[in-house]
């Protein structure tokens, strides 16, 4: 009896295993037939009308589809089919015509005048005019906009009279003025090097929103509901299942020409399931913000019906080094009140830290090589990015040790860790947040590299994002090293918002007067309008950054996007491939 019992147990266990094995065995059998499809691909056929493509994102959008109020990349995916701005950007990140066909500056570079396309209609048939441009920028500057939840006031912040209008001191906004129906002038308080960037915001229709108060606008159906949203773009937002599916149908009257596709559908699918559906063809493309994971690269590359788009991302992960701390409880951003962080005050120590970490190994190990080592905090896509002049900090534990020795940080008590020049215990805390698996995994690796050269690291427990960033903002006194990731703007390379001494996001509290002066020069007209001059100043700044090293850029992961080979006409730009979607077409196999 006893024997029988265990035998039966064993049998059922084996049976279960058999079922599991059969499941995974189905893998090969299932994939083969789908491969045949690609052979029929014939680019010579030319664009065809009709068809639907399905895009996937792994997190549902929060549901705010008004360009002036949305915040997340998930909404941006959908909005990029619906709304357009006056300007677009080409593959070199130069501004190109959008709703505006041409533009010119006045002599002192304070006024920027746009000639608008004249045959543009809103998706409900109303004509698009200069009034819509004025209306949009007026909203961005209007009092109550921020209180209603808006965060994009910076697009209007440099315009004449922004301060007076946004505080309610003036009823009249003269920052953007209509000259005639198809001519509009942006007036800046000062000559503005980022004028084109400021003018590139998506335009929303005046006739739809004019009777809605700014406070009610985020909740208005015109901002949230499919079928009520009106843009100028190639696709109309017609239907949705909130949190699951978003259906866009072609705008047959699109001003650049009728789109080839009938519709584009966005589906929300878990990251782990996206790949399977990409392979079966249920999903045609996957894009920002998360694309697919580097670990899955080989799997996706092996799919015969899928093409991968891989290019550098606008962003990177850094290990910041707190050069200064704010005085305890001080909420201002006044560098004169900061105190020096004794543990990291020596430039040589910071440089040693950079030498001690094998960043290429981190990229190879955690990102499967799908990323780049970057030595300056400007996005590599800009020609302002200087690849050669800033110090490269190629991995060298010996160099790191040498620098630490020179700086007087030596192991005097023989415990394997270096003491500071006064012979006291020297421990650097390393802090990191939860929420990005690769970053989480990089923290202990960094710790190991630094301890290998004798730096005693206190690797703190990771904190949940909301808690972590509160501490980071308060600039906790006992923090030395911190991990954080930055996504960068694709419209302008200026790093002032992150690294200028009084910038809120300058969490290292880096205060280098020479560097700040260079940043200022790079952004001060009239010289700064000369791109060569500006790039030169930014290059000098990048060298300063690299030498003084308020942060080490650990890695910049590549964007990994993919689309089915039946989708054609995809024109990849550095920041997206969801552009000129009216030229997308599919070949059915």
């Amino acid at each position, binding site marked *: 009896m006893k024997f029988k019992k265990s035998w039966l147990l064993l049998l059922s266990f084996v049976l279960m295993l058999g079922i599991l094995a059969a499941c995974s065995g189905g893998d090969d059998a299932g994939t083969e037939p789908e491969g045949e499809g690609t052979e029929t691909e014939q680019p010579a056929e030319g664009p065809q009308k009709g068809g639907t493509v399905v895009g996937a994102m792994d997190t549902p959008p929060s549901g*705010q589809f008004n360009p002036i109020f949305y915040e997340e990349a998930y909404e941006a995916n959908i909005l990029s089919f619906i709304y357009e701005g006056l300007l677009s950007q080409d593959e070199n990140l130069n501004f190109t015509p959008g709703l505006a066909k041409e533009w010119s500056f006045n002599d002192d570079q304070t006024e920027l005048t746009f000639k608008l396309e004249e045959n543009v209609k809103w998706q409900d048939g109303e004509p698009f005019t200069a009034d819509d441009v004025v209306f949009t920028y007026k909203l961005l500057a209007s009092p109550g906009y921020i209180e209603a939840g808006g965060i994009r006031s910076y697009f209007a912040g440099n315009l004449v009279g922004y301060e007076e209008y946004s505080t309610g001191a003036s009823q009249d906004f003269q920052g953007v003025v209509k000259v005639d129906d198809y001519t509009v002038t942006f007036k800046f308080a000062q000559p503005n090097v980022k004028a084109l960037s400021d003018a590139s915001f998506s335009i929303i229709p005046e006739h739809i929103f004019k009777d809605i108060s700014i406070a009610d606008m985020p909740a208005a159906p015109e901002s949230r509901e499919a079928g009520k949203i009106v843009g100028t773009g190639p696709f109309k937002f017609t239907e949705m299942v909130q949190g699951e599916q978003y259906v866009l149908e072609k705008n047959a009257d699109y001003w650049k020409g009728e789109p080839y596709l009938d519709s584009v559908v966005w589906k929300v699918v878990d990251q782990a399931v996206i790949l399977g559906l990409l392979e079966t063809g249920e999903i045609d493309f996957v894009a920002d913000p998360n694309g697919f994971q580097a670990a899955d690269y080989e799997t996706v590359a092996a799919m015969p019906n899928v093409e991968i788009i891989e290019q550098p991302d606008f962003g990177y992960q850094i290990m910041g080094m707190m050069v200064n701390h704010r005085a305890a409880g001080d909420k201002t951003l006044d560098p004169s009140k900061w105190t020096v962080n004794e543990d990291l005050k020596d430039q040589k120590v910071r440089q040693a830290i950079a030498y001690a970490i094998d960043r290429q190994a981190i990229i190879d190990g955690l990102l499967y090589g799908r990323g780049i080592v970057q030595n300056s905090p400007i996005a590599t896509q800009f020609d302002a990015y200087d690849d050669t002049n800033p110090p490269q900090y190629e991995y060298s534990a010996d160099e790191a040790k040498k620098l630490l020795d020179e700086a007087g940080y030596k192991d005097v008590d023989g415990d394997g860790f270096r003491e500071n020049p006064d012979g006291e215990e020297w421990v650097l805390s390393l802090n990191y947040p939860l929420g990005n698996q690769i970053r989480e995994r990089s923290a202990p690796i960094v710790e190991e590299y630094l301890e290998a050269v004798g730096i005693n690291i206190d690797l703190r427990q990771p904190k949940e994002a909301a808690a972590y960033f509160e501490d980071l903002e308060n600039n906790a006194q006992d923090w030395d090293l911190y991990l954080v990731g930055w996504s960068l703007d694709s419209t302008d390379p200026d790093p002032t918002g992150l690294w200028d001494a009084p910038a809120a996001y300058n969490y290292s509290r880096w205060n280098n007067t020479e560097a700040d002066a260079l940043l200022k020069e790079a952004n001060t007209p009239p010289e700064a309008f000369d791109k060569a001059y500006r790039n030169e100043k930014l290059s000098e700044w990048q060298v300063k950054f690299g030498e003084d090293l308020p942060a080490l850029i650990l890695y910049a992961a590549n964007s990994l996007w993919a689309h089915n080979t039946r989708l054609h006409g995809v024109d990849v730009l550095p920041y997206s491939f969801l552009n000129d979607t009216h030229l997308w077409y599919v070949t059915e196999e």
Partner: protein
Amino acid sequence: MIQYLIRRILVFIPMLFALTVIVFALMQAAPGDPFSQKMDPNIDRAVYEKQREALGLNDPIHEQYLRWVGNAIKGDFGDSLIYKGRTVADLIAERFSNTINLGIMTLLITIIVSIPIGIYSARHPYTPLDYGATTFGFLGLATPNFFFGLLAIYVLSIQLGWLPSHGTVSKPGIEGFELFIDKIRHLILPSLTLGLAGTASYMRYMRSEVLDVLGSDYIRTARAKGMTENTVLYKHTLRNALIPIITLLGFEVGILLGGAVITEGVFQFPGLGTLFITSIGNRDYPVIMAINLMLGFFVLLGNLLADIFYSIVDPRIRYD
């Protein structure tokens, strides 16, 4: 009985009130707020400070709480801080129906599968089928939700194409019977996944309860009286064996409503679980409060229902 019910329901009020105080206090004690993790180098922190001020997040905690209670009593749970332009009531309503559907389907699967198998196992212990059920039970308990969910998607959806892999409907705009069938099809995999562990454990409970009761004196007496095996089983055994199961099911209601985060994630099934978790991560205070209140209510209600069912299955239990 009626009096008892009224008394029980009145007790809900102070309990829920206490719950809101505790949750509100904990929420405020947690570090960070809805704006602490919003970081965009283009955006001046002053913008967020203005928004904090406008939302009243800088007011003293007791003022914030009283404001919340005042509105909540009037049925106004406020606007979400993260889902801009959406009211909390609207957000929860949208997710609630999905969660209820998933919960009901899961409970049905759990009960329909586990109780008959449990009874069978108890009546025919140590037979191959019993061993099979036992093995399934342990595997079911040991398999993590996300693994079973992904396996089910891979086999049944991606390889065989029988069932949809994500969402609650296949496309917007379908109606009537077609919509009903479509929703059921979308529910099958998530509810199987969610119900797996439950089914396995109820099966085990059922088996041991029935075995236990079958061995008791009154069953021997019943058999001695010459009752048919069916009468013994369905009239005497089952009623007694079901009591602990009902207690568990009462708790299960609350768990099903609030705890399906992983399953919802794998199937991108927009339910309350994921809303709850993202709201906590984002410090979306009004949503957290409302969901907590709702979950608290349903846990209390589930327990009350369990108590009522006791008196139905066991006439000796009386409430007055």
